[in-house]
């Protein structure tokens, strides 16, 4: 299926190649470079590129292109999903997935890729299994390695691969048994000029960090599972229990993992936590423009809105911005034409305001469209949909784990049209 993989950085260097079948010359990447040039933005490179003898399926993550070479029919999503898993695995192993970390850990990366695919077909993609075979580098271990000359390859054989619960490694032991769950909700919304909601929905995920000894069997139940409209699960979740009882019953993987992601019922009206009053105008004469933005809290359920950030992609003709912010700081990058206003906490009494003039390229016609605003925000201790975890029960194991649930609401793709 997947024949070869090339990792390419933004400047077009191929810094890693791996072949699972016979070797394919890296000149095949020239087709990719061609497509990349045509697309301009990295986002616009078509994920599937056809060449005379091969197909290139690529993803772009963390400023790296993962370009895989395919020779025969294969579901494109299969490859795309796999490549993202590879990127996630790097992140899991090295803390971040970047060119530098990959180059620093070239041998481990290579060993990982070797284990993840066999003849181009995924073999072990569960991080728990891989970690049993190839230990992730830590500062301590790499020091020990340099002194003793040992490596990160596990000396033991991966028994996890044989188990019926391939996502959990065997013989887990902790002195502090803990299970933390983060309920993170994101509001996706499009607001129009007048502030009315064109479209809004809530997407959520439950990320877990479970460090429990042995083989615990957990059951997580919600106060109001009916809120959830559409869900997808980590393979460890027993789907039938969910179907019949609306509880999450699972034997967790060890460490961090995404337990489920969900979509909140569309019928429920989405509470939009902030409102934005904006007025951006460009003048025909004098090559200037004016900008006036005010952000205020709306439906916040009594919580403080934090980390508010307004990002505006300005039209190309905007040369500079001369603004004053009553709260926070703003920056304008004249190269990328991005105006960022970092507000921070929203204050109920004194609404933050950004006001001032924009100077345009003289002679150029005024932009016809006003740029739309992208909003970032964060509300701690609140799941905006009202979802609440009821309880977490543990079976099989005897000890008493420490349990915790945290709620966060964030803005997802939150856009205000102007």
């Amino acid at each position, binding site marked *: 299926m997947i024949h070869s993989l090339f990792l390419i950085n933004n400047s077009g260097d191929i810094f890693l190649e791996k072949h699972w079948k016979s070797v394919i010359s890296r000149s095949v990447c020239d087709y990719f470079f061609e497509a990349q040039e045509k697309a301009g933005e990295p986002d616009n490179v078509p994920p599937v590129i056809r060449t005379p003898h091969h197909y290139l399926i690529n993803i772009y993550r963390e400023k790296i292109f993962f370009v895989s070479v395919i020779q025969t029919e294969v579901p494109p999503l299969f490859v795309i999903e796999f490549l993202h898993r590879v990127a996630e695995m790097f992140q899991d192993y090295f803390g971040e997935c970047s060119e530098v970390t990959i180059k620093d850990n070239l041998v481990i990366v*290579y060993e990982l890729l070797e284990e993840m695919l066999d003849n181009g077909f995924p073999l072990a993609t569960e991080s728990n299994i891989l970690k049993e075979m190839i230990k992730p580098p830590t500062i301590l271990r790499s020091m020990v390695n340099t002194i003793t000359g040992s490596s990160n390859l596990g000396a033991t054989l991966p028994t996890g691969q044989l188990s019926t619960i391939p996502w959990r490694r065997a013989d887990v032991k902790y002195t502090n048994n803990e299970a933390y769950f983060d309920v993170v909700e994101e509001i996706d919304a499009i607001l129009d000029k007048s502030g009315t909601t064109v479209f809004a929905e809530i997407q959520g995920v439950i990320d877990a960090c479970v460090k429990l000894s042995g083989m615990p069997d957990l059951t997580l139940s919600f106060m109001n599972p009916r809120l959830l409209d559409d869900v997808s699960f980590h393979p460890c979740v027993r789907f039938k229990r969910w179907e019949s009882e609306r509880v999450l019953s699972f034997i967790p993987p060890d460490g961090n993992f995404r337990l489920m992601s969900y979509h909140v019922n569309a019928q429920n009206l989405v509470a939009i936590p902030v409102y934005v009053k904006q007025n951006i105008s460009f003048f025909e004469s004098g090559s200037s423009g004016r900008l006036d933005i005010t952000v205020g809290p709306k439906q916040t359920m009594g919580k403080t809105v934090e980390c508010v950030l307004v990002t505006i*992609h300005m039209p190309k003709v905007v040369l500079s911005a001369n603004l004053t912010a009553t709260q926070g700081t703003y920056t304008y990058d004249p190269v990328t034409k991005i105006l960022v206003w970092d507000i921070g906490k929203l204050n109920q009494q004194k609404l933050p305001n950004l006001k001032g003039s924009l100077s345009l390229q003289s002679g150029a016609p005024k932009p*016809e469209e006003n740029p739309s605003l992208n909003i970032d925000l964060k509300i701690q201790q609140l799941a905006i949909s009202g979802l609440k975890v009821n309880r977490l029960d543990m079976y099989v194991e005897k000890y008493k784990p420490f349990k915790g649930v945290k709620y966060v609401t964030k803005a997802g793709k939150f856009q205000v049209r102007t």
Partner: protein
Amino acid sequence: MSTTSAFNDEKGGSSSAGEPEYGHDPASGGIFSSDYKRHDDLKEMLDSNKDSLKLEAMKRIVAMIARGKNASDLFPAVVKNVACKNIEVKKLVYVYLVRYAEEQQDLALLSISTFQRGLKDPNQLIRASALRVLSSIRVTIIVPIMMLAIKEAASDMSPYVRKTAAHAIPKLYSLDPEQKDQLIEVIEKLLADKTTLVAGSVVMAFEEVCPERIDLIHKNYRKLCNLLIDVEEWGQVVIINMLTRYARTQFLNPNINESLLEEGGEKAFYGSDDEDDDDEEKKAEAAALAKRKPYVMDPDHRLLLRNTKPLLQSRNAAVVMAVAQLYFHLAPKAEVGVIAKALVRLMRSHSEVQYVVLQNVATMTIKRRGMFEPYLKSFYIRSTDPTQIKILKLEVLTNLANETNISTILREFQTYIKSMDKDFVAATIQAIGRCATNIGEVRDTCLNGLVQLLSNRDELVVAESVVVIKKLLQMQPEQHSDIIKHMAKLTDNIQVPMARASILWLIGEYCEHVPKIAPDVLRKMAKSFTNEEDIVKLQILNLAAKLYLTNSKQTKLLTQYVLNLAKYDQNYDIRDRARFIRQLIVPTDKSGALSKYAKKLFLALKPAPVLESPFKDRDHFQLGSLSHLLNAKAGGYQELPDWPESAPDPSVRNVEVPEWTKCTSRKERKEKKVEKPFYSDSEGESGPTESADSESDTGSGSESGSEESGSGSESEESEEESESEEEEEDEEDERTKKKKKIEKSKPKKPESAESDQSSGEEQKRNRKVVKERRSGSESESEEESESESSESESESEEESESDTDIKKKKKAAPSKPPPKQTKKESKKETKEMSLLDLDDFDPTPSPQVTPVNNFLSSSLVADLEGLSLTDTVLAPTTIAPSSSVRMYELLHRITGEGLAVEYCFSRQPFSPDPHMVAVQIQFTNNTSSESKSLHIEDPKLQSGMRIKEFPEIELLPAGESVNVVMGIDFCDSTQAANFQLCTHTRKFFVSIQPPVGELMVPAFLTENEFKKEQETLLHGQLMGMNEISEKLNLGEKCQSDHAIVERVTAKANLSRVPCGSEKENSPPLPPPPVSSPVSRFAGKTVSSGSLVLVTVARKEGGGAQLTVNCEKMVIGTMLVKDILQALTQ
């Protein structure tokens, strides 16, 4: 090869020059100036005795490989270390070997013996890894060795090794396609494997080696379907895609009758009963009737749909997509909708995933627009989306547009037009054009909108609008001459060639609508002719020709001028065109016959262009495939076959063990449970997943409504485990206890001797008991007969049966003699309540009288009850459960910490409230201490449901039992009543769920009344809604009228309608006249008093027709199901 590697080397070298160097990798870059020297150093390290040095060398070498540098000259030095003891070194050597073996075939052979040794290792993981490396070495000479190794590994004990063997198959096949036949044999063998670990890999091998051998799948089809949910995600994708193709060849198109239904919907719908009588006939006439016959889905087809559906919840986008395409290609139209939500969810994922999903959604929206309509807003475009995503979303929005939502969509489009992304704007304008052509109502609005865009400052926008307007105008040019005039003015400003050409074409084509302006435009164009682009020049020529033909007076000279200019143009196309036009339109002596037709040629009516989606007809590619995405066949793509005309023989999928007969869902579930450990890993690591899964099986089973529900979940679980042969100590204890209890309960019976038989047998039987209770109903009929015949008789019968029942059980015969537990109950009961011993009322069983008697007995009991307890009417009465009544478990002894609670539906009227169902509850205190104050608390009921609690039991001494009666108004639904059962120390959550048959009370009607009621029900407002009919084949044991009555009354609390004679003299309207006996039963629902009429008409040859008339459709349907089950066993 050498050129390639040289190239690699060069490129690698050049790229590394600018890179930062790795601290721990001095081997690369400039430290060692020449390759020769560098490799010398590494060779030295590899030859040393120290593992640490070797490891360091190998790490450097692997790093070189990773960066695409050539390390092939190290091969001899590396291959020596293949037998190195150090597992870390070994692994890296493997990596090297797999990379370079192909180039250095001879040297690679040196390593083979090591792997051959590894293949014999006692450790399965070493065997697997040896096979993996051996099969990855692409050296043709070792093909026979590989073949042998694969064959051996395919029958290895360890499923992991077998999985590796499956992986090795395509490797060998690509190395030597000659081996195909032998490999197919191995595949066939591995396909029969029952572990989830192997399934995905072997199907992948199947797809690469022999996708055409669909016949290999038959025997494994059902297994694959059932295993699917437990296979790892990548395997799921491959299996689902393969099964989609398989299903296309084996089943009938579920949407075949779509058009037929639309035409004569009702007829086909209600006529269905008459048409599907017996199978043989059907098969014979299948071809002829295919069109007329209502479609019946093959149960295997249904199995596939049902088992893939949960996978829509997978986190893996590829799995979701695979299921989505399966549903799109295989599911009946009405069911395809379920995939929409999951696909919309994927749109939240990475942009590459979005890209692929949107392509597929675009194709789907053309075929089934309705599916995605509710999610319209999810396709709205954000300014931050990448352009390619925007354009795909636009495509979907356009496909979704219809009369009702077009205004919303157009409003949305309006905002898009203002976008800074000009490619996107152009696409939006085209989308508007498409909406306008497809939806007539908005055509004018769109046209006006587009005309406004003509004054846009951006030239691209204007140009695109012109092109689209041109297309729209072609549909109705007469009404829009002002638009044409407006556009004519634009020629002064617009520079985009395509737009200019479009305008010129429009003016030429419709010059009669703008007679004054057209010549002027030509004049201007003639002036600028030489500076125009080629396409514009061509259109100028066309315009000139058309004007010459219609208005030669004004334009003759101009045309001549233009033609002369064109004559000397650089482009030969234009010169040709000029020459051609001149000959055609300018009449000369030489000009042939053609010039007469010039007008016809140039001014012919041109059909309006059809604006259609580029995704039209893409669905002939399997969705989700690479070929679909590219809209071109990719190498190795397997065509999605068309549905067969008539279904191939479904029996090919039958496996030796008849695990799949067309049975009720419950039985199926039961079987599945038994299978579970069978399919799970032979390693014995079934673990909690397995058991929990099967547990939830039962959970979902409760949907079916008639499931016994009294036991708490925990007790259920314990039963579960006893069933799944997990020998746990507790279980063992319980079993022995149970056994003792059984023995105790009937010490005098002859059977007690038998129960002393081997414990294994006893266990089996116990398990059977459990099963019996779960499956919950079949036994009743037997019980009934027991109650009717004399005690001793029943015992002897039982004895004889219990001798054989174990054997029978193995054959999975569903109807079995009464389980011991119930027997125990009945016996205990007869002992305790001798006063009300029903046997006293029992006359000799005769078919005619029994039903009446049955009803009599219960009513007599009621009378007696009333008599003896008149003074305490308000206090709910305690009646011994008649032996015909089944006991359900409310609280298991273990769960209840010694307190066992069972309940039954005593079928007595509940005196405090006639709308309530009487539920008799029996508490047994099995502890050594007394329990106090037993009462009910905190009932959680569905709206409308009510509970009348039993009076608190103050004291229940150790070892004693007590019976109480409570009333529940179920509101004529089979929803469970949940409440807490409290003792002085504990609280237990319990629930009572009534079988549908207990929701009614007998009604006494004469035959004529019955028919009258039936007719009123039938000819009421909702004709046909109140009647449900089913054909059935009576089970062996219920051929007689007597047995039918027994079974029906056991299943439902109905009374038989007495009839004058067995033969029907005056046939009623429904069912159609039959000469066989008809049994009728009548009852009323407890809560609302709706009539329930049941008719069983027997036919020759064991067939019968069951008709239930009831206003409450749900009750009717469920009742039919239950009675059907009772009668067919």
